[in-house]
């Protein structure tokens, strides 16, 4: 069979499609526009908090499916909708990590030589950038999952404390302290003060 996109599945399953369209807030066009806006940042988040591209791929699809299934939910704003998606994705990763922990404890890779003692500049050289990336990946793996999530949301995505609290299911008032603690820990690994 030769499938071409976009495929109108309404023709294949008229009853379910009709029932869904009646109840759903998010139609195909809206979903696709939302996906275009969020898929890459979500994948970036998932790949960096899991440290695994394949796991990120799976979690991405699962997150959108769960999000889509509850698309009858009314969101106050685009940010709220986006935070909801990130919260679903975060929970998927946490559940997956919990299941994996029961199976076995995965050791952390890499024992190669560490980092420089000098602070990073705003625009480092390409070689130094590659070094920093390795250091960062190693540092992220040393952090608690919630610290990784928090740092990524705060500094890579520029999320506010309220948004971080919403996504991670924490109290907004505690984010500042937790973030500072995570930042200090990451900085110790990045500056070579502590070797992973």
């Amino acid at each position, binding site marked *: 069979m030769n*499938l071409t*996109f*976009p*495929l109108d*599945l309404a023709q294949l*399953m008229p009853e*379910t499609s009709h029932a*869904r369209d009646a109840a759903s807030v998010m139609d*195909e066009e809206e*979903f*696709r*526009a939302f*996906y*275009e806006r969020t*898929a*890459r*940042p979500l*994948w*970036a988040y998932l*790949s*960096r908090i899991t440290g695994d591209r394949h796991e990120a791929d799976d979690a*991405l*699809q699962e997150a*959108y*499916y769960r999000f*889509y*299934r509850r698309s009858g939910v009314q969101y106050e704003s685009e940010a709220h909708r986006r935070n909801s998606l990130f919260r679903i994705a975060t929970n998927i990763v946490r559940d997956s990590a919990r299941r994996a922990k029961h199976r076995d404890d995965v050791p952390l890779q890499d024992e190669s030589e560490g980092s420089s003692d000098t*602070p*990073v*500049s*705003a*625009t*480092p050289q390409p070689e130094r*950038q590659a070094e*920093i*990336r390795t*250091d*960062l*990946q190693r540092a992220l793996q040393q952090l608690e999952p919630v610290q990784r999530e928090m*740092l*990524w949301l705060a*500094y*890579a*995505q*520029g999320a506010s404390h309220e948004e971080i609290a919403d996504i991670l299911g924490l109290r907004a008032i505690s984010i500042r302290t937790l973030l*500072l603690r995570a*930042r*200090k820990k*990451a*900085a110790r690994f*990045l*500056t070579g003060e502590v070797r992973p």
Partner: protein
Amino acid sequence: MTCHREDELLDALARGYTGDELREHVASCASCAELQAVAGALLNEHSVAIAEAAVPSSATMWWRLRIRERHDAEAAARRSLYIGQAATLLIAFGLVVAFFGNDFGQTVRALVASIHLSTPLLLAIATWLVAAPVAGWVAIRQK
């Protein structure tokens, strides 16, 4: 301990440019140096991750979601059907017991007692029980 210029530094890092004055401040402020080390590295990693993100197209994702939704709906319908069948059987059994009451047990016992198993019949049943799996295994192997 944090510095009051952290927000300013974060904005500058996001823009990709920290002026001389701010750079001098960062060099002398432990909190800002720490922020620059972490946030700078994360911002750089974010750009790399966004560039390397190989996500499916929105059309593909939409199609996958609808297909999966359909499969889930079918599975849910099947589950409901099994539950309905089990409930029907239970109700039917309950009705039979309710109508026949104690007589039902006696009827079943009488029915079982009326079956006379002869030796040739037992042998035939035993042979069939042994032969059927062997025949099945041979058929599968040949296939």
